[in-house]
């Protein structure tokens, strides 16, 4: 073990620091940023009151978010057909949720402005707020309700096409051109030319407003539709909740910044700055979630698989949802729903217990005081 003296450390760190050339325009950039920085006029208010108000705003933001969250879930569930149980999420939905973080970069890249969903002229389609999963095999064209104004729906779909010999590549090319013409893009493409059954898969990202049209055009290609699945997940409540939280947090940050402008003592400055940093972190985190949801609901994902021969992967394997399996699933759903309800109610129960405890202590102290007064 060597001995490191103060001189050694000073020389080593000085040498390492010298390896970082100081930006020549660094000081000038500071001056330029200072010139551009807005001047905040300090408000003559009582700082504790301001701090309390800002803290109350932040607390209200979280409380509001917590209250909105449970209220949003039943809305999408009750909008589903009453007679049918809530459909299990499709594989696309599961993959969508699991890959949420991975697709964040894509969400940022696919930052086209949110197209306004066209209103259904006939008004005969179910509302987009209803979570729905539709599956068909060579049946009529896939029907996916467009989102009404303001609604945000994450749409996904998959289509399996069977083509004649030598038609895999032309069909895939036609599919990609359809996506491009609709203002979308090709997220991934894969072809397998070897073997007795050439096949290819292409994943498209198309504007959600043109999703049904693209699905219809893909189905109308010169190919046999072996399977087609589309699904929609309503995220309007989740998105609105995020926007509300962001508005509140930004307002809180503005209040903190005003307080910061009025602060004079070092401790106040650093303390308030720390609060500003914390709120900014929360804003960044929520803004990322909002951007991801926006991108997912702005562009739908459509996977098209083209094959020349019967492919086991495209076989329809759905079984009628009845019998003992359905009963077991219903039982399990009931069990998990009950546990969730118990956990959700535990918070209020704890609050009631706390209130009772405080009341008990106050009553006991009051009783003792009254007895002393009597004695």
């Amino acid at each position: 073990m060597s001995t490191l003296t103060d001189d050694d450390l000073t020389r080593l760190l000085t040498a390492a620091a010298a390896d970082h050339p100081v930006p020549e325009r660094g000081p000038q950039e500071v001056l330029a940023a200072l010139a551009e920085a807005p001047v905040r006029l300090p408000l003559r208010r009582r700082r504790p009151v301001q701090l309390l108000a800002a803290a109350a705003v932040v607390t209200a933001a979280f409380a509001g978010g917590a209250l909105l969250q449970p209220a949003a879930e039943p809305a999408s569930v009750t909008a589903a057909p009453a007679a049918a149980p809530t459909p299990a999420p499709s594989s696309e939905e599961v993959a969508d949720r699991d890959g949420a973080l991975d697709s964040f970069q894509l969400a940022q890249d696919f930052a086209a402005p949110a197209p306004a969903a066209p209103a259904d002229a006939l008004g005969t389609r179910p509302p987009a707020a209803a979570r729905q999963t539709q599956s068909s095999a060579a049946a009529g064209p896939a029907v996916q309700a467009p989102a009404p104004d303001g609604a945000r729906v994450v749409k996904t779909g998959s289509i399996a096409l069977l083509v004649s010999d030598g038609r895999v590549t032309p069909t895939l090319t036609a599919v990609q051109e359809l996506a491009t013409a609709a203002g979308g893009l090709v997220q991934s493409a894969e072809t397998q030319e070897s073997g007795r059954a050439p096949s290819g898969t292409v994943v498209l990202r198309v504007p959600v407003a043109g999703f049904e049209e693209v699905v219809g055009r893909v189905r109308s290609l010169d190919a046999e539709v072996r399977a087609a699945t589309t699904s929609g997940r309503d995220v309007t409540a989740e998105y609105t909740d995020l926007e509300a939280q962001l508005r509140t947090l930004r307002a809180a940050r503005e209040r903190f910044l005003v307080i910061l402008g009025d602060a004079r003592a070092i401790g106040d400055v650093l303390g308030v700055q720390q609060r500003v940093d914390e709120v900014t972190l929360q804003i960044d985190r929520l803004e990322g979630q909002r951007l991801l949801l926006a991108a997912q609901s702005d562009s739908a994902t459509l996977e098209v698989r083209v094959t020349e021969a019967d492919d086991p992967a495209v076989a329809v394997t759905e079984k009628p949802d009845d019998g003992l399996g359905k009963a077991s699933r219903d039982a399990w759903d009931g069990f998990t729903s009950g546990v969730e309800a118990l956990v959700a109610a535990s918070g209020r129960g704890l609050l009631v217990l706390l209130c009772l405890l405080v009341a008990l202590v106050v009553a006991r102290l009051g009783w003792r005081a009254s007895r002393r007064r009597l004695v």
Partner: protein
Amino acid sequence: MDDDLEAWLARDYATAYRTACLVLRDPHEAQDAVQEAFLRVWRFRASVPDGDGRTAWLYRVVVNACISRVRAQQSRTGKDVGPAGLESLPDAAPPTADLAEHAQLAVDVVAALADLPEHLRVPLVLRFYAGLSEKEIAVAIDRRPGTVKSRLHDARQRLALDPRLSAWVRDDALEAAR
């Protein structure tokens, strides 16, 4: 504090920037952090103490800005940007023959610093690069002087065990690098 920001920048910017570089190991993040720190200090210059306390106060804001950026990066990436996340660390591959010894020394020192946890790296850099006293470091990191002394001791012990620095503390190697 006088209203002479230019003179203040000319005097302290370089040291503050390189301090941030050693703490953050990312020149771009360091530049942003130092700019933010200077703006913050300038905005609240009325509360900046005079005399020796001014330097400690500046570095307190610099350190806070650096730590905020580290935490923001951790929040964005969801992983610890400590010793395991050294994307911006200079390549520690063996040097080519024509690589100057000075460059290799810098690489070794930065790598050794990167292996130190943040709570040891910050006081070490403030003490032995920025030249702050233990009392000033205590102000800068908002800890007691005894804690600073303890952390400096721990940091020194860890660096003394680092084989990458052992070669450079020999008199001849260090002299050559200088």
